[in-house]
């Protein structure tokens, strides 16, 4: 394969991440819409978030879903079918575990979207970081602000290949 062939831009990954997040929200949280509030080159505002890597023969990407402590707790609780006080009582470790599962499922949908053109992509294990993830030299990032239910989140795509 020639250099650059089959590689995807950060914008292409972002479009797939958005599609996957909408699909996840609809099927697992019962939410119809994930309205986009804005998009830019990043980095995202510092905050807690779950990240996962997808690596294949034609490229790699790191994806993140970042929110606030309250937002992460809210989404984790919704995934577990909790309501009101139950969500408030959700412990830190359980919140991190459930929130990590959100990026895991979303990234799995992204993998399925890209699988036909490149089945070599493999999914890593999710990690949870409270801070700010920034692009390094020769990396490109896009942050898209969306709303999942009442929760504002930032979707981060970080890819080493500035292909357009």
């Amino acid at each position, binding site marked *: 394969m020639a250099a650059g062939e089959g590689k995807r831009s950060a914008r292409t990954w972002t479009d797939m991440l958005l599609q996957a997040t909408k*699909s*996840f929200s609809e*099927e*697992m949280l019962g939410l119809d819409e994930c309205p986009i509030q804005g998009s830019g080159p990043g980095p995202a505002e510092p905050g807690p978030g779950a990240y996962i890597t997808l690596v294949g023969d034609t490229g790699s990407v790191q994806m993140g879903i970042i929110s606030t402590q309250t937002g992460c707790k809210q989404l*984790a609780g919704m*995934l*577990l*079918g909790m309501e009101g006080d139950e969500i408030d009582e959700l412990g830190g470790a*359980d919140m991190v*575990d*459930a929130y*990590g*599962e959100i990026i*895991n*499922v979303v*990234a*799995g*949908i992204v*993998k*399925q979207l890209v*699988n036909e053109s490149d*089945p070599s992509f493999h*999914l890593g*294990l999710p990690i949870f970081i409270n801070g700010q993830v920034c692009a390094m030299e020769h990396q490109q990032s896009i942050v898209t602000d969306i709303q999942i239910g009442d929760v504002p989140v930032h979707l981060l795509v970080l890819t080493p290949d500035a292909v357009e």
Partner: protein
Amino acid sequence: MKILVVDDSKAMRMIVKRTLRQAGFGDAEVQEANNGAEGLDAVKASPPDIVLCDWNMPEMSGIEFLKALRAEGIDVKFGFITSVATPEINEEGTAAGASFVIGKPFSADKLKSSIEGA
């Protein structure tokens, strides 16, 4: 009915158990394991009717767990519930002896029909 749910995510084990109840398996005895190695021990200690297992797990993955079971001659029914349900994974899983591979997100109807068809 006895069901073993194997996933490194406690959250996903909770979701699978909730979906099992929605699928009409509320009376089932559900055991849990955190990875393939724990799952292997659980099956040997008390064989379930079916294993519902994640694919991608640390220590021992789902496919390693399934192959270890079959290598020891344990023919328990086995299904994958995974976020990477591609045709390649489906082929590898069923070739190793899985009855089905369900992708996440999944519905109660899908889980019910998969278990009943296993």
